[in-house]
């Protein structure tokens, strides 16, 4: 327990701040959320600026094209970019936070050289093909099958909840290479493939969410040919390969949003002060409590990062504790926002209303809160396996 900010880290922060102050005013206007090609161009343009300035893949290992920064430097980067109002990773989320780290950890040197530089430069966009209509929380029961045919796999099946599928070049795809049978645990028959989205037999159908926008898509695969050298890790070892990715997801993927929570909360307070609702002690205390909750999320993040720094590995099970709290606090924050807004809470054009609708997915996406509690109960607390 110490305040440990080295001179190097402070220097890193100063240089980053100066750079952000320089480049952010040169960014084009943010695109219309419904215009996917424009969103891709905007997000990839920002990624290219990061790349040219040496900030792309900051915490990736150097043999993956990264800068080998410490977890604390990475945290400073995420904190400062959010504070400065820089763009979010957006369309590059999967490439930078799921597929890329997986290839960096598990890919061959040739695979790293092929796929990682275009991700870091913002040249290629990835999407994620994990969930299926009948394999959500029970991901290991996925049925999209891949059959070996010479130097290729022939892949057939369907995926769901795939973000950015319409504009992605590649999909990190989980397929079944050993049929579900009574003798093999079902997670032993899964393989990780890099699927080119322009391959014949790939069909994308946008999925409209309750927010009215098409943030996700269904992806249908009909005898799609995927070369064997597109496989990361061994055949039937894809579950283990994927767990590396999911650990990343629950580690630092939400840092920017935690910083944003505090900013939104301060904006709620200013709005409430202006419209008179601040005089209601019930609302005031509710916002005060959320300030404590946001502080805890920030400290839990720092804790997870200092844990990762100590072990030199990816963030551990502490990620589940964070994810549970984060999902709930995000939703409580926008419930409070609705109270501050009063009648305007029904104006879908208001930023906070759109965010309120989006926040409904937080206790579901990336592992439902119920699944997270199972993980906490069984893997952290050591309770007997439930059924």
């Amino acid at each position: 327990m110490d305040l440990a900010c080295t001179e190097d880290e402070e220097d890193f922060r100063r240089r980053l701040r100066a750079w952000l102050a320089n480049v952010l005013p040169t960014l084009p206007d943010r695109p219309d959320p419904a215009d996917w090609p424009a969103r891709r161009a905007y997000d990839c343009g920002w990624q290219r600026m990061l790349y040219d300035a040496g900030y792309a893949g900051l915490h990736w290992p150097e043999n993956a094209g990264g800068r080998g920064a410490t977890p604390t430097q990475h945290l400073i980067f995420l904190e400062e970019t959010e504070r400065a109002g820089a763009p979010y990773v957006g369309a590059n989320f999967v490439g930078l936070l799921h597929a890329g780290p997986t290839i960096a950890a598990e890919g061959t040197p040739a695979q790293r050289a092929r796929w990682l530089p275009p991700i870091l430069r913002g040249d290629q966009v990835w999407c994620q093909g994990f969930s299926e209509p009948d394999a959500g929380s029970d991901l290991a029961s996925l049925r999209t099958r891949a059959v070996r045919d010479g130097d290729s796999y022939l892949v057939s099946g369907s995926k769901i909840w795939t973000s950015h599928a319409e504009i992605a070049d590649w999909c990190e795809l989980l397929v079944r290479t050993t049929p579900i049978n009574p003798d093999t645990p079902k997670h032993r028959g899964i393989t990780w493939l890099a699927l080119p989205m322009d391959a014949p037999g790939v069909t994308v159908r946008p999925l409209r969410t309750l927010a009215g926008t098409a943030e996700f898509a269904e992806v249908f695969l009909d005898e799609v040919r995927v070369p064997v050298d597109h496989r990361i890790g061994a055949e039937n070892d894809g579950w283990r390969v994927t767990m590396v990715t999911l650990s990343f997801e629950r580690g630092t993927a939400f840092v920017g949003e935690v910083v944003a929570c505090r900013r939104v909360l301060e904006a709620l307070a200013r709005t409430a002060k202006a419209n008179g609702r601040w005089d209601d002690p019930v609302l005031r205390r509710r916002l005060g409590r959320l300030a404590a909750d946001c502080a805890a999320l920030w400290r839990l993040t720092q804790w997870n990062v200092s844990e990762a720094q100590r072990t030199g590995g990816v963030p551990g099970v502490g990620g589940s504790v964070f994810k549970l709290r984060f999902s709930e606090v995000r939703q409580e924050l926008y419930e409070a926002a609705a109270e501050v807004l009063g009648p305007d809470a029904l104006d879908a054009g208001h930023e906070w209303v759109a965010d309120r609708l989006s926040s409904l997915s937080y206790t579901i996406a990336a592992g439902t809160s119920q699944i997270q509690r199972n993980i906490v109960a069984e893997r952290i607390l050591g309770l007997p396996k439930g059924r």
Partner: protein
Amino acid sequence: MTRAVDFQLTDDQRALRDGTRELLERRFPRARLRTVVDGPGVGAGLDRALWRELGTAGFFALRLPEAAGGVGLGLPEAVLVMEEAGRALLPGPLVATQLAAGLGAAHAADGSAVITALDLGTDEAGADRLVEHLAEADAVLVLNGEGAEVRPAAALADSARRIRSVDPATPLHRVHPPAVTPGAARNTGAAARLRREAALLTAAQQLGSASRTVRMAVDHATARSQFGRPIGAFQAVQHLCARMLVRAESARSVVYAAAVTGEAGDIAAAKLLADEAAVRNARDCLQVHGGMGFTWEADVHLHLKRAWGRAGQWQTAAAAEEELAAGLLPDSC
């Protein structure tokens, strides 16, 4: 605000925590706790020998400089020690005595004096206040507005009335503020700091209790079988326990961070979340224990009752929330 915090305990901090736990397990085992709460007279006096032993171990002089005969440690170490005290349900005005030792109160540092506290707040005419362990105390740390002073316990005795304390290990007196004549103002300006530190150290005790009740619930859910399996294999029970851990670890993150920064806003968050974790975890622990949880014999109610008491001390939820809310509008007020 933007400093990086390293939450990893140093080797010395680990040794301090483990040493404190070992001392308390040896000198204040469950049997001792049960003697206190099952004895003939509720709150049958503090164990003075234990109090002195705590003093010898540096419990009260922890933050005094070494030149003044103290241990020379800081708030993070004090938090770790108080967390262990909360875990063990160690009775007595631990926080008040440590704070009084910091003001140089006679015999506080070595544990030969027991010093309780009375915070009259900053309002002119306040409501009645509760003072714990008044009958056993030698002196009272009185915070009045901006000032702080240590006065003989006898000065309060006339205006104090004993109540039947809900927590059998924490006797309480009710004190009516106007009956306490302010003495000459001493340590002017110290009260705000003392209130912050008291809130933080109390939060640390709540954290210890909140972590302990998670363990108690998990142990019970593992040992107790119904329908042919441990009740901890049922998701309904698992999820209760998971929520308890999330509460305890969220509280831990802000309590430890506040111990490092010492900032008022961080301490308000720490007190708020630690109070909630202690009270709600004790409630859920009681629920997991089923009928046994409703008995006097189980220790669960002792955690709940102590947590209620500490939640009302120093900074209540309402005060913490208002302070945090005010912090959202830095330019106004």
